């Protein structure tokens, strides 16, 4: 397996993206289109599926998503039904931890009369025709012998947007989905994928004649610092420029700008929830609409710095590169779409770099330094809060921020429920949809424990030590 990725599913997705990118860069996609499935699954024997033909058919579906997917579906995440292995639904099942006790608390807890007992072994089992998956039996068992077996996608989805279609494949309820992308990363068969906009990205780069006709800027998320192992960040920056970008700018500078405004807004309103993570924002709007007026009105760091660049550089195009699927949805919002033209992920960036046969290891380093320590640590949970506290301090405010830092949608939910109830001991919620913050994003190339420390190290390397130093020339 390619050690640059966490899983073979990511690697497979990358291979498809790379072939598509290669075809687009070289203007050969149309001729090669039908050969790509064979290149990825050369055969003659299948390695992932029941037969080589199914394997190739699935590659073809992945190619469609790599080229933008179904335009009629607004969600940037789609299921590939034929790739879904239709995992057994399971639900509650009695495991071999059942000791066949005498108390039968599980039987008494069940209101549907669904618990039966093996006459010989005396152990319990569940009559699936009667069971409604309420979970009462599991709670009652003192041996924890009854377990709920969820499909990995359903388990990953903390907003219950994934269910089973009539044909047993997974389906996403787009109304419920908040684009966190957990299912994309978690599905062991890679049957759920984010739509890719590399076609739009490559066309912009080509039309610009490598930024000669108009400048194309790459805004990179601070989590870029921990993505590309074995090469330096400076080499990655050079690699991005070699794709045809005029310049690489840190989204962290946008984060610096946001933290100042967020601190001011917190002081004015007295209670605020962060607006950096589009999944957290959508989560509040869809599930806790009564708190929607507490969401910070600031644009996200990405949109903030993009707005600044667009206002200062005529006819430029801007692409965001990050670990995030939700950012693909964010730029469909009319407030953001005028500033950011395309969102790419680190997976897609890797595919584009390799499609152009750019050898990062052999490149000279280019500098990347726009933001302060505080802007850069936005990449991890808790970073935004540190920045807002610093911003209050730098602005000489006496307002006391009492933050609660939550990552992962389950923790976000707990904080929001508390906030809804009122009478809480915090006045600022930093919410991130992914566990660990952006470094836990679904399109990070790797997810390692040390990433958090690496982000802090990257933060400390920044030339500007305070937010004020970093943004003093950018305030309007």
């Amino acid at each position, binding site marked *: 397996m390619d050690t640059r990725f966490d899983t073979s599913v990511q690697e497979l997705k990358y291979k498809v993206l790379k072939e598509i990118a290669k075809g687009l860069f070289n203007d050969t996609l149309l001729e090669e289109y039908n050969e790509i499935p064979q290149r990825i699954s050369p055969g003659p024997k299948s390695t992932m599926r029941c037969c080589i033909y199914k394997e190739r058919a699935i590659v073809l579906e992945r190619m469609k998503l790599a080229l933008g997917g179904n335009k009629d579906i607004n969600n940037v995440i789609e299921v590939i039904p034929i790739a879904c292995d239709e995992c057994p639904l399971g639900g509650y099942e009695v495991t071999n931890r059942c000791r066949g006790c005498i108390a039968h608390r599980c039987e008494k807890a069940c209101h549907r009369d669904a618990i039966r007992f093996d006459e010989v072994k005396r152990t319990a089992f569940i009559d699936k025709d009667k069971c409604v998956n309420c979970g009462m039996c599991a709670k009652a068992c003192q041996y924890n012998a009854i377990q709920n077996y969820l499909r990995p996608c359903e388990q990953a989805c903390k907003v219950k947007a994934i269910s089973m279609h009539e044909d047993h494949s997974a389906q996403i309820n787009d109304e419920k989905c908040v684009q966190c992308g957990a299912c994309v990363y978690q599905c062991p068969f890679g049957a759920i994928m984010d739509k890719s906009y590399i076609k739009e990205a490559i066309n912009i780069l080509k039309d610009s004649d490598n930024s000669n006709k108009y400048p194309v800027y790459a805004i990179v998320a601070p989590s870029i610092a921990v993505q590309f192992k074995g090469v330096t960040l400076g080499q990655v920056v050079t690699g991005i420029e070699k794709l045809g970008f005029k*310049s690489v700018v840190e989204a962290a500078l946008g984060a610096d700008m946001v933290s100042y405004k967020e601190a001011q807004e917190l002081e004015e309103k007295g209670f605020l929830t962060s607006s950096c993570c589009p999944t957290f924002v959508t989560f509040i709007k869809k599930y806790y609409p009564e708190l929607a007026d507490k969401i910070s009105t600031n644009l996200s760091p990405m949109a903030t710095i993009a707005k600044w660049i667009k206002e200062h550089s005529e006819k430029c195009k801007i692409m965001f590169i990050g670990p995030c699927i939700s950012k693909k949805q964010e730029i469909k919002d009319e407030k953001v779409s005028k500033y950011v033209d395309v969102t790419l992920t680190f997976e897609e960036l890797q595919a584009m770099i390799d499609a152009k046969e750019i050898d990062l290891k052999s490149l000279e380093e280019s500098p990347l330094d726009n933001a302060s320590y505080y802007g850069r640590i936005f990449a991890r949970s808790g970073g935004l809060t540190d920045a807002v506290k610093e911003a209050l301090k730098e602005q000489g405010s006496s307002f006391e921020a009492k933050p609660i830092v939550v990552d992962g949608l389950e923790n976000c939910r707990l904080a929001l429920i508390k906030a809804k109830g009122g009478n809480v001991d915090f006045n600022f919620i930093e919410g991130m949809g992914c566990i660990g913050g952006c470094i836990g994003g679904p399109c990070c190339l790797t997810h390692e424990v040390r990433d958090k420390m690496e982000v802090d190290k990257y933060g400390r390397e920044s030339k500007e030590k305070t937010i004020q130093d970093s943004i003093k020339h950018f305030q309007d």
Partner: protein
Amino acid sequence: MTVFVCVGSSCHLKGSYEVIELLTKRVKEEHLENQIELKGTFCLGKCGVAGVSIKVDDEIITGVTPKNFDDVFNNHILTKIKG
């Protein structure tokens, strides 16, 4: 007249913020606030050259440092405005 100062990574590290501060100060001293618009820009494509890059209307001037700033201001900005 618009003066762009590069605030891209390379120029940032070479001191573009110092140049902006000197520029703002000189503009004030010469009372040119109404004639000179100061703007930032990301990368003028001259990263390899020492010093900061600035753009005066369509002319790119490279190698600006706090040391030679007054010369640059006099020769490339003041003369243009007064001429």
